[in-house]
């Protein structure tokens, strides 16, 4: 490889050259853009707004749970809050977060392409997202919804008198946004790779996005049709899921979880991709067991489809099928374990720089490990009977989704922030925020494991007094967490004006996205790159650098 040095002069744009941000001005140049980088920015703003909304619900709920009595909110309000927290965070933040922001921005850059395969469809998927989000906001303002994000029948179809129809319709629409993003990514990865960029030269982030897109493409339509049936049942009431008329409420659960379990992998697979990129960049090493990590993404994408009914062990499925699903659930743990071990091993004999993205990712590995192993508890059916539907489950999936996906999203945002904006974030503040988030997260969610084993059911507005101490700890942690999340919001905005200019490659990382200016020009690369090297070829790069530079 002729390689890239840190801030290679070839990629520094001449004074006054236009990048994708300064290419055009005016609101319409953004709202009608077909450029993947600009669409990524649109997504960044939208999901940040919805993250704050979802976070607001979480904070109010945690304050409510300071005392055992339900004294801050009414039961109905509390029920609406946890429902909306779930819907907003899952459908409107976590699922689009890394794919639609970082994936959108980086995939063509990493592939050496000018854009995604279908730029108009990319814009359409953002508009679908926005339409659904606006519907969701309208529903929140006009009374909300109280079914839980799982929409279990027959509660959602017959008994809830909130806006179930509207919110399921919004989820239906945002599902199509997700499908179109996945479709776009898959075609792009297959058809738009730069000359010489073979599959096993792809960055692991691309592999992860590929696996994620498969899940988005093949799981989401089943959710869509399930929600259509739910909406139809709610309006016409013909008994599709109503046992009094011959329907089976468990069928809804089967079909819902056929999507919603793989949806967990839509959230965590991209996070794993970010982890691989960051670990490689901040150890200056090729990821240990590259092909194992790559294939394990695909394995997770497939195996993730075989385990859904482990959400239903006490719901009334047959004993026999419960065993099948328990057995298969343990399979999906293997590729996750492979990844954790490989990341850890990559540190060995590396050159480990504990910059902010790396701090987040080390935190991610730890929290994901805890989230993962507690999944093993839940897959053991005999134990699941006790802990399912308790705070143990709440803690488990927050360790995966917040400790895993959100930590990695923060890592990725910091790692690629110089590329996206051309400015460095303030390192000291960023490290402080990373540590605050890590500490606050553990204080919030670790006590919930104990609460769950003690038997506190989830979705409880009021609870037995003996659970109070742990709940207070949890709320205290949540306030630390809230400060932790507020900090990056402030300093990242600050850095847009006052951050140090980053240069094309501030980390001394390899990967095509670092071989163009920061921020990149509208067409990404002035010349289509030809790839002749493997992913994470740090030794070659560092050799080419000659005199090492401290970064």
């Amino acid at each position, binding site marked *: 490889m002729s390689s890239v040095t840190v801030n290679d002069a070839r990629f520094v744009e001449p004074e006054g050259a236009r990048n994708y941000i300064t290419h055009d001005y005016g609101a319409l140049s953004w709202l009608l853009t077909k450029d993947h980088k600009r669409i990524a920015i649109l997504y960044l703003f939208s999901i940040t707004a919805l993250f704050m909304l979802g976070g607001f619900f979480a904070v109010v709920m945690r304050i409510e749970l300071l005392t055992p009595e339900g004294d801050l909110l009414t039961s109905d309000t509390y029920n609406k809050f946890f429902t909306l927290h779930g819907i907003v965070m899952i459908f409107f933040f976590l699922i689009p977060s890394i794919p639609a922001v970082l994936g959108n921005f980086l995939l063509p850059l990493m592939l050496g392409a000018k854009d995604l395969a*279908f730029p108009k*469809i990319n814009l359409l998927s953002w508009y679908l997202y926005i339409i659904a989000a606006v519907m969701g906001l309208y529903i929140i303002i006009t009374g909300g919804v109280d079914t839980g994000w799982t929409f279990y029948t027959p509660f959602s179809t017959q008994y809830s008198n909130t806006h179930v129809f509207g919110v399921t319709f919004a989820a239906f629409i945002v599902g199509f946004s997700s499908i179109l993003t996945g479709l*776009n990514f898959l075609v792009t990865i297959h*058809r738009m790779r730069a000359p010489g960029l073979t599959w096993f030269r792809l960055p692991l982030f691309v592999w992860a996005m590929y696996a994620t897109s498969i899940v988005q493409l*093949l799981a989401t339509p089943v959710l869509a049709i*399930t929600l259509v049936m739910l909406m139809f049942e709610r309006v016409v009431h013909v*008994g599709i899921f109503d046992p009094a*008329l011959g329907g089976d409420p468990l069928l809804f659960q089967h079909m819902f979880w056929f999507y919603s379990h793989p949806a967990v992998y839509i959230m965590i697979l991209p996070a794993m991709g970010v982890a691989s990129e960051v670990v490689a960049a901040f150890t200056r090493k090729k990821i240990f067991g590259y092909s194992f990590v790559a294939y394990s993404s695909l394995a997770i994408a497939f195996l993730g489809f075989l385990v859904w009914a482990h959400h239903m062990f006490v719901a009334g499925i047959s004993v026999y099928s419960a065993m099948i699903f328990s057995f298969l659930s343990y399979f999906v743990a293997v590729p996750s374990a492979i990844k954790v071990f490989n990341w850890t091993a990559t540190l060995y004999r590396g050159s480990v720089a504990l910059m902010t993205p790396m701090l987040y990712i080390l935190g991610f590995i730890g929290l994901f490990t805890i989230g993962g192993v507690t999944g093993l508890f839940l897959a053991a059916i005999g134990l699941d009977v006790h802990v399912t539907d308790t705070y143990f489950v709440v803690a488990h999936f927050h360790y995966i989704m917040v400790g895993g996906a959100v930590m990695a999203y923060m890592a990725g945002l910091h790692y690629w922030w110089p590329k996206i904006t051309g400015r460095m974030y303030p390192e000291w503040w960023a490290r402080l925020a990373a540590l605050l988030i890590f500490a606050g997260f553990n204080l919030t969610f670790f006590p919930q494991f104990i609460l769950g084993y003690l038997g506190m059911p989830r979705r409880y507005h009021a609870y037995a007094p003996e659970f109070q101490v742990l709940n207070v700890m949890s709320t205290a942690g949540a306030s630390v967490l809230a400060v932790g999340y507020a900090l990056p919001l402030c300093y990242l905005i600050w850095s847009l004006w006052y951050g140090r200019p980053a240069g094309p490659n501030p980390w001394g990382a390899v990967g095509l996205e670092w071989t163009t200016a920061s921020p990149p020009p509208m067409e990404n690369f002035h010349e289509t790159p*030809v790839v002749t090297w493997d992913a994470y070829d740090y030794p070659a790069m560092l050799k080419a650098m000659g005199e090492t530079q401290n970064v």
Partner: protein
Amino acid sequence: MSVVTNEHPAHEHHPFLQHHFEDLAQQHEASTLGMWMFLATEILFFGGVLCAYWVYRILYPEAWSLGAEQQNKLFGGLNTIVLIISSLTMALAVRNAQLGKRKSTVAMLFATLVFGSTFLAIKGFEYWQHYHEGLFPGVNFTWHEVPALAPKVQLFMTFYWGMTGLHALHMVIGAGLLLWMMARAWRGDFGPEYYAPVEIMGLYWHFVDIVWIFLFPFLYLIPGVHHV
């Protein structure tokens, strides 16, 4: 680092080559692959409701065969043939586009539209009949020939209306796309170099045909359940 230039003089001037593709071949492959992936989501979309259908069909075989007895097999069979003919004309439209035959492309697309509309008309007539027979699920469901099975027959009719309705919706969307394709074909957009839009239109149309190929036996031809 070696580079290849972005200049491809041979294709540079093709009016339908989008700027982010290297050449028409790449663009063609991307669009057909995209369509296939979209059809994969459609397979799981229809597959989801089929899964629910089969769960209840296995639980309530009598109600299902009673439900199928309410259907007009003649219209169902006729519609199947009509749709197959439209698939043939669609395939021929793609072939004509590949060969650069402008007028016969338009003609075949128009024939497809005619047969598609015929299908919808027959389907609409069936709907009209069912509605008047009280076979629309919900408050208008007044079918009570076997009272004990009425709720389950209603469930069957729900799947009937839902699945044929989704299918018909796809047909209507397809008809709209056909009109657009006809306009483009008339304008002379297509030829051996560039026919991807007609091709993916064809993929979509054939997929809708395949859905019906399954819906016909599933909704019209359910074997009777024998009582001892």
